[in-house]
């Protein structure tokens, strides 16, 4: 009888050991995945900063899946739904776009994206809830922990957002971003220089981001 118990204890110990090893292995796999994702996102970002539109759209699309996972996870515990999460995803995408010149190509991409997501999340909670909700401070990798491709439609309405910015900016964004005119063509139609038009588009995008903030406050 005594021998049986010993064996049982020993095999239980082995099981625990095995579980530990598996957990370590899955942790290692997880970290490797995150590392691979980081390398991939960073390459896409740098290509986007160099003007590669296809890479840039892929980056935003990949980022939106991670951001969706991140915000849904955090909003579920605050009893808020998928539409709010999608609003936040879109707000962060616009912020990534209008602030992309603040990304330092020599550094990791994930902490940059996480810092923007966190800033926008804190800002959103401050605007929308009466009581101060704390956003947990995590490792930057947390933003890559969940990948959620199931997009819903956000509550943001492009037309009404566009109605709130200056005529000049609205026209510039309409030509360059919606009608797909080249910067040169759009500049000719607006009767301004190409660099002035680029500045107008950039400011217009920032004004749109500001409209989103004001909408819910």
């Amino acid at each position, binding site marked *: 009888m005594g021998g049986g118990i010993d064996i049982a204890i020993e095999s239980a110990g082995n099981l625990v050991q095995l579980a530990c090893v598996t957990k370590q292995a899955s942790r290692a796999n997880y970290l490797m995945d995150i590392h691979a994702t980081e390398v991939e996102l960073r390459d896409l970002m740098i290509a986007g900063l160099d003007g590669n539109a296809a890479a840039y759209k892929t980056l935003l699309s990949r980022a939106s899946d991670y951001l969706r996972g991140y915000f849904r996870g955090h909003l579920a515990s605050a009893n808020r739904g998928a539409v709010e999460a999608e609003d936040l995803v879109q707000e962060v995408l616009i912020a990534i776009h209008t*602030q992309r010149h603040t990304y330092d190509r020599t550094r990791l991409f994930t902490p940059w994206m996480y810092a923007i997501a966190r800033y926008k999340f804190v800002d959103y909670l401050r605007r929308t809830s009466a009581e101060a909700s704390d956003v947990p401070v995590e490792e930057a990798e947390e933003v890559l922990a969940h990948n959620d491709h199931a997009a819903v439609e956000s509550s943001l309405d492009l037309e009404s957002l566009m109605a709130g910015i200056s005529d000049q900016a609205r026209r510039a964004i309409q030509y*360059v971003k919606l009608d797909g005119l080249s910067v040169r063509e759009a500049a000719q139609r607006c009767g301004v220089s190409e660099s002035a038009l680029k500045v107008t588009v950039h400011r217009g995008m920032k004004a749109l981001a500001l409209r989103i903030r004001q909408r819910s406050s």
Partner: protein
Amino acid sequence: MKTDRLIEILGANIEPISPRRLRVAVVLALVAGVTGALCLMLATVGPRTDIGAHLPSLAIKLGFALAVAGAGSAFLARSMRPGQHSRRLLALMWLPFIALGAAAVAALTTAEPASRGALVLGTAWWSCLICIPLFAAIPFAALIGAARNGAPTSLARTGAAAGLVAGAFGAAAYALHGPDDFVPFIAVWYSAAIGLCALVGALLGRRLLQW
């Protein structure tokens, strides 16, 4: 709006981004700020007439102010990029204050007890507290303008850094005018004026730097 549609819009007709864009904005603001502070000093109180006779103390004042401005602007530039930690720079910003404070304490302990009050109070501490923040106004506006080009995630901190650098530029401009040369005076009143600028910067930063 569907997220895919937003991505199409954001990705349409994108232009290459220069990696130097943010740095250029900060450097321009720094140059404009120094020039503005100097011009305001020249236009109002003007430099002291006996400046040639006080070069060692001028060197201390300018060295202190420029050390604060240097550490502060490095911190400021970094704080405009999300996700970059700058604890070491934050510590570095305290260094000029600590060094000057230590020199002031040394000067006070070796001085005669009766003269200590005069070493700290000098002749024109009030002018120091008024002029430095006044001269700092132009560099502060320039630096906040540059910071609005960036994406600071801790608005009060970035605002405080802008105020600190602006205050340091104000102090550098005032150094050419101020009649007080004792190290304890500089340590107390120049630091206080710069600190005041940083405090105002932190408060204004919260409002002005939102994005």
